[in-house]
């Protein structure tokens, strides 16, 4: 065991000093991510302190204390993964398109009131995702599909990722949502009516499972759907339905291994997060009808009806919107009317990303044949 720990001390000495050199090199060559690099360097300093503890444990050779080396090794592994597999390559490979989208997202985050953000880096390398742990909440790393370099299609999904950053920044959101779940099922438990003790036991077990299902990670995901629709309006709702229609899974199926709630619950939460006026927009009605048709192809199930009941989802939407309004008081729900907007085909320097995405969605669904003809000719 001692030999293993000593070997890891040597291994991490090499890795940590390589990271230090790389960060210095990037900072010297390009000054545009100085703030981000400072934050990463302070994360590295923490890892170096852990490495010092590891060295002491290896040096004093006390078998009992040596057991404390393993949590340290796991933490060093995590920091190395975060930096060597994510932030450092994103900085090294940042191209023009990454930088353009990064600036766009940064401006959008600031406009939305996420004023704790110091910098961000975007890597156009795959599905939407974000790294936004508590020590990195000011400098999130965002992954997005490469086609964002040329197309706004699917881009509303980025707002879901920004939701993760907000959820992480304000711990009270998780507490409030968890309380909503607890209160909902406490009320539901009381409504049992006349049943046998065996039936009551079974019912209570199902309710306990439903409460366990809504752990922090799932509340995080549903909050992000609600946040994204609150900020980006119909464009995000349409994007969420599009994701659901592309997915071949049963939209009512509860998967314990997936941190995302079932698609029917997510789409419902997005729909309920739209303003009443937006629910009457032509594009929203068309997509809503398509989704209901998709749902009718499946039969649903009792577990879904308990775990993701519309009453619970409505309460989660209500709590999430209340939290958003509390923690981001300057952020307003997206409210521009699409069908009555005369500027819909004119993008100006004052247009927000939300406006552009909503206009694009509206045009795509109301003038799809014209667009198809234009791009076919090219």
């Amino acid at each position, binding site marked *: 065991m001692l030999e293993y720990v000593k070997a890891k001390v040597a291994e991490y000495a090499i890795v940590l000093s390589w990271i230090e050199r790389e960060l210095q090199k990037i900072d010297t060559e390009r000054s545009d991510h100085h703030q981000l690099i400072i934050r990463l360097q302070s994360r590295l300093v923490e890892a170096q302190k852990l490495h010092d503890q590891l060295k002491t444990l290896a040096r004093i050779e006390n078998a009992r204390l040596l057991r*404390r080396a393993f949590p340290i090794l796991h933490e060093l592994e995590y920091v190395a993964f975060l930096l060597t597999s994510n932030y450092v390559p994103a900085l090294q490979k940042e191209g023009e398109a990454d930088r353009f989208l990064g600036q766009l997202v940064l401006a959008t985050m600031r406009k939305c009131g996420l004023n704790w953000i110091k910098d961000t880096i975007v890597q156009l390398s795959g599905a939407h995702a974000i790294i936004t*742990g508590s020590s990195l909440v000011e400098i999130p790393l965002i992954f997005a599909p490469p086609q964002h370099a040329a197309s706004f299609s699917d881009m509303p999904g980025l707002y879901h990722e920004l939701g993760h950053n907000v959820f992480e920044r304000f711990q009270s959101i998780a507490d409030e949502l968890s309380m909503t779940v607890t209160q909902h099922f406490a009320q539901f438990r009381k409504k049992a009516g006349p049943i046998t003790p065996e039936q009551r036991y079974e019912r209570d077990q199902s309710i306990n499972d439903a409460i366990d299902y809504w752990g922090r990670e799932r509340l995080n995901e549903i909050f992000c759907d609600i946040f994204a629709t609150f900020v980006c309006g119909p464009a995000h709702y349409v994007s969420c339905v599009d994701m659901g229609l592309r997915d071949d899974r049963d939209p009512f199926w509860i998967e314990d291994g997936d941190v995302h709630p079932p698609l029917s619950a997510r789409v419902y939460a997005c729909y309920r997060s739209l303003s009443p006026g937006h629910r009457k927009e032509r594009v929203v009605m068309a997509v809503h009808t398509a989704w209901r048709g998709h749902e009718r192809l499946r039969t649903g199930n009792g577990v879904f009806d308990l775990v993701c009941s519309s009453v619970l989802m409505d309460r989660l939407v209500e709590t999430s919107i209340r939290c958003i309004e509390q923690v981001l008081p300057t952020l307003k729900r997206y409210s521009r009317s699409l069908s009555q907007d005369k500027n819909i085909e004119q993008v100006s320097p004052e247009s927000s990303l939300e406006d552009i995405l909503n206009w694009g969605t509206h045009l795509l669904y109301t003038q799809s044949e014209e667009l198809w003809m234009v791009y076919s000719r090219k």
Partner: protein
Amino acid sequence: MSTLGSLSGQIEREEERLRELNLALIALEAQSFGHTADFGLSKEDIEKSRQLLADFIVRFRGALDQESPRMDVQSLVHRVKSGIKPIEDWREDLDALATQLQTKETLKEEILPVLEDVLSLLDTEFTEDLRRLYNR
């Protein structure tokens, strides 16, 4: 659909807690085995570490009796309840540990395994999420 957004937040919280508690346990074990000078630990450092561990153990012990434990200890409670060690034994051991941590005496060697077991559960939770992060 990526799990990275929710997982990266979760794992950072786990890492921060594991780091604090593990360093605190190192401090108390260093005191028990006469190695405080090797780690450059002062009396104040030992006292802070003891307080940190005491606060956590009291919170964790309380959560074992709650129907809906707070989110930060929810998964640890779940792990303990589904483990092979009877919950009654956990309650008894944690009560004894909390009492010891609230005195200013050097921790007795026989109580250390309880603290190490708790840390081991937290480390398992962290490494499981680390694997999920690799596979995201």
